[in-house]
């Protein structure tokens, strides 16, 4: 265990102490204690900068399950470090924000911070694991903590619905991903991602390659809310806003991006990867931004916008895979896509984080997030307004903010795709920039909606629950920090170039970088009049026009019928699954004891019969059998006769007496077969049981048999015959094939020397297996107590218990 391991585990350890802190120091907001941790972790991880800036890496291994080759390997390279800094940095800001957002007195803070810390630790584990199994474990931890956080206000129906939805979809993806990991580990014979990446060329030709890739991508797409799995993210907005800012925009949903980036060295050479990741990402980007415009809830807009932006990053990663097919580093234009992906990842975390916090402030101060009720808040909340302008304009891709730079790079990458002559891109090439442009237009529109629908227009105080005013300073600190970053990264993007972006991008496409060299990253504003700049100008013009005429074309959305949406499909399939399983269960859980016994016996016959048939286990060998003499045949006949009498007896008394006859015959068999103890016991017990039966008979109704339907009788007879047949066959086979001698020699030798007795059966019972006998006595006493209770206890109507003598 090294420092890295402890850093991953620290949030979990901290989570254990949070409830105590909440209890012991109730006067101080618990968030202040929690805040220390991400700040410390952030500064701890800063020391890895010198290593990763030169494309180096640090790896620490602790054995976890050595027998299975599963180690807890923590691995830091440029990509991991970028995510770690996002997780701890945004985490610190979110915790600070939550201190002012969540009331100290009204909310159960300890739950909130336990879940949040659990998430933070899990997320660190995901991005720092080199072992796919530990990665999977932490991955599911993020799903679980996300579930708990969405359902934080668990008394709301929508929260529970959203939590369940996100859980079902992301855990489904997680399981698929686990499958992919297992397939990969079978292919490469290792659980280590780095070792798998080292064998990438061989894996590429493996027949299971495509299967592994699709399974891993399912994990990434569900987590990162890509089409068609994105439907959980809008419903996840029921979580408290700090959670939405942290999990559902800045970090957790980017775990899918991380996964795609991390596995790029393994999969990216394949054309399928390029197509699937690129096309799904781009379509998600356009589709979600189109849908964001029709939302009326501010967080709904942000949710769809997050889906859209994640799609954008995803598509860049997919297109960046093309760079692997070009050797020369200098004029390899497709590495620009990878760099753009990393840059936009950082930018999105900053502007979307600040926007979520702004929306949280609006919600907190006005009591609503509905844009139809809001308006004219500019003069009342000037700071919030400024922050939202910075965030939204950056998201829309307007200068001088960081979003403009990465958006330009995105558009450039899409344009350059038209020059690519790989993977049959030619015929489709035009579609990429067109979709990207359309998506950007809608992105522009909803970004404008966030600013102008809320802060300009008519102020409608009568629709608000509270009297709006500017937020307290504490709540503003975090969004101000993020908004400052938006501006700083926008004006000085090269602050990031070689500190964060280059190392992360290099970790995504390591194979094209010669040792000792680095990717060339230089981000600047003015490229001259380029196609991408013209596209951005087009976006602004068309976006402004469409925004102006918004009410005129909103009717477009009505053309999408509610019946064919993915949400409808999700709800319907959930409903069908519940109904289906209910009816299946009701079909076999009939409440009739006969049905259950039929299942058991039918299974008995089928399982044993099939095994005997499949293994050809039946043998017949009578050579070792004892001779049969007259008495025994007579006893067998008596036994059979008594048994048949029970079956066909009309009266109850006859059957009870016949059962007694069977018992006594069995005890006579014991005599013949040299078992005097058994014979004695059987005689006594049989007498007592028959007496008990008769006693019971005295109380039960006279009628012995209930008329059964013929079909049932025949069925019962068949099952009964089957069971009897199987038992006989197994008995004969067991007798005919003795593979080893009995262990009874031990008892015969030791009965006298060790236990001082001569009757072997008795000595086994009371000495060698004394505990068995003890427990047998215990069983009898339990039975006796039960019988006593059943006879003495009377349940009165109305459910009260009392005793009647």
């Amino acid at each position, binding site marked *: 265990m090294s420092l890295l391991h402890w850093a991953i585990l620290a949030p979990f350890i901290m989570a254990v102490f949070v409830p105590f802190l909440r209890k012991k120091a109730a006067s101080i907001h618990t968030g202040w204690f929690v805040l220390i941790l991400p700040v410390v972790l952030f500064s701890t991880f800063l020391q890895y900068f010198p290593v990763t800036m030169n494309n180096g890496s640090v790896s620490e291994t602790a054995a976890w399950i050595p027998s299975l080759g599963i180690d807890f390997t923590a691995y830091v390279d440029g990509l991991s470090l970028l995510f770690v800094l996002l997780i701890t940095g945004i985490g610190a800001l979110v915790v600070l924000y939550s201190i002012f957002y969540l009331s100290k007195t009204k909310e159960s803070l300890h739950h909130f911070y336990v879940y949040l810390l659990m998430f933070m630790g899990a997320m660190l584990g995901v991005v720092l694991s080199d072992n796919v199994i530990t990665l999977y474990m932490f991955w599911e931890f993020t799903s679980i903590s996300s579930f708990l956080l969405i359902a934080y206000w668990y008394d709301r129906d929508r929260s529970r619905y959203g939590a369940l939805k996100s859980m079902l979809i992301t855990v489904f993806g997680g399981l698929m991903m686990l499958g992919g990991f297992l397939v990969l580990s079978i292919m490469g014979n290792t659980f280590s991602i780095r070792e798998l990446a080292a064998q990438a060329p061989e894996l590429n030709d493996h027949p299971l390659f495509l299967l592994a890739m699709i399974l891993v991508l399912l994990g990434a797409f569900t987590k990162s809310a890509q089409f068609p799995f994105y439907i959980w993210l809008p419903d996840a907005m029921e979580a408290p806003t700090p959670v939405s800012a942290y999990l559902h925009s800045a970090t957790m949903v980017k775990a899918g991006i991380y996964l795609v980036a991390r596995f790029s060295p393994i999969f990216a050479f394949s054309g399928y990867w390029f197509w699937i990741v690129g096309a799904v990402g781009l379509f998600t980007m356009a589709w979600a931004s189109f849908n964001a415009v029709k939302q009326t809830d501010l967080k709904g807009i942000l949710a769809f916008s997050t889906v859209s932006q994640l799609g954008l990053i995803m598509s860049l990663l997919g297109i960046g895979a093309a760079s692997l097919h070009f050797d020369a580093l200098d004029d390899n234009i497709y590495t620009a896509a990878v760099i753009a992906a990393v840059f936009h990842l950082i930018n999105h975390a900053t502007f979307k984080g600040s926007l979520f916090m702004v929306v949280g402030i609006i919600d907190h101060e006005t009591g609503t997030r509905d844009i139809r009720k809001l308006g004219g808040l500019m003069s009342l909340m000037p700071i919030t307004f400024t922050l939202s302008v910075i965030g939204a304009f950056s998201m829309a891709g307007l200068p001088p903010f960081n979003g403009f730079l990465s958006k330009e790079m995105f558009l450039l990458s899409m344009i350059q795709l038209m020059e690519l002559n790989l993977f049959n891109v030619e015929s489709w090439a035009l579609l990429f920039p067109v979709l990207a442009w359309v998506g950007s237009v809608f992105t522009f529109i909803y970004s404008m909606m966030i600013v102008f629908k809320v802060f300009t227009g008519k102020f409608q105080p009568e629709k608000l629950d509270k009297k709006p005013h500017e937020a307290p300073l504490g709540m503003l600190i975090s969004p101000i920090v993020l908004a400052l970053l938006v501006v700083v990264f926008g004006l000085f993007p090269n602050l990031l170039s070689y500190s964060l972006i280059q190392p992360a991008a290099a970790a995504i496409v390591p194979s094209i970088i010669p040792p000792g060299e680095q990717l060339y990253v230089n981000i600047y504003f003015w490229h001259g009049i380029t196609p991408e700049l013209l596209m951005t100008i087009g976006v602004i013009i068309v976006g402004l026009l469409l925004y102006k005429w918004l009410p005129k074309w909103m009717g477009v959305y009505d053309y999408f019928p509610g019946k064919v949406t993915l949400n409808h499909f999700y709800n319907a399939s959930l409903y069908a699954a519940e109904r289906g399983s209910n009816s299946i269960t009701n079909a076999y859980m009939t409440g009739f004891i006969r049905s259950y016994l039929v299942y058991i016996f039918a299974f008995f016959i089928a399982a044993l019969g099939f095994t005997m048939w499949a293994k050809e286990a039946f043998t017949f060998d009578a050579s070792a059998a004892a001779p049969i003499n007259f008495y025994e045949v007579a006893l067998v006949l008596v*036994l059979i006769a008594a048994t048949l009498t029970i079956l066909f007896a009309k009266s109850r008394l006859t059957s009870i007496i016949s059962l007694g006859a069977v018992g006594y015959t069995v005890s006579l068999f014991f005599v013949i077969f040299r078992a005097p103890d*058994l014979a004695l016991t059987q005689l006594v017990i049989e007498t007592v049981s028959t007496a008990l039966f008769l006693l019971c008979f005295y109380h039960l109704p006279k009628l012995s048999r209930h008329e059964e339907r013929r079909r049932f009788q025949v069925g019962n007879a068949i099952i009964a015959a089957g069971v009897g047949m199987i038992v006989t066959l197994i008995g004969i086979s067991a007798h005919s094939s003795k593979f080893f001698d009995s262990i009874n020699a031990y008892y*015969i030798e030791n009965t006298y020397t060790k236990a001082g007795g001569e009757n072997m059966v008795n000595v086994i019972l009371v000495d060698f297996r004394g505990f068995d006998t003890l427990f047998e006595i215990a069983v009898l006493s339990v039975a006796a107590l039960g019988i006593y209770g059943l006879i003495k206890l009377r349940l009165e109507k109305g459910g009260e218990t009392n005793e009647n003598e």
Partner: protein
Amino acid sequence: MEILMCIVAGLLFAAAVYLMLSKSLLRIIIGTGLLSHGTHLMLLTMGGLKTGAVPVLGENAASYTDPIPQALILTAIVISFGVTAVFLVIAYRAYQELGTDNMDQMRGMETDD
């Protein structure tokens, strides 16, 4: 002899299963009784029949029958007695409370809370 006893045990099993699948509670209990008889005979048969003297050292015989199945069966006899007794009392009480010993009629009665 062993083959014969296997068939007898199988017969007892078949009769027991047939009885247990019926509706009458008493017949089900009789079925469990038959089932344990069948099991005991089968167990004893598996140890080999009449292979030596009674398993008591005082006999001074050259060989003894296998004592292990006998010890097992002895335990089983006592336990099955306990089970039968509990079943019978349940049948008795069920009849007292519900007025029937028909399993189908007992199903889902109001008083089973």
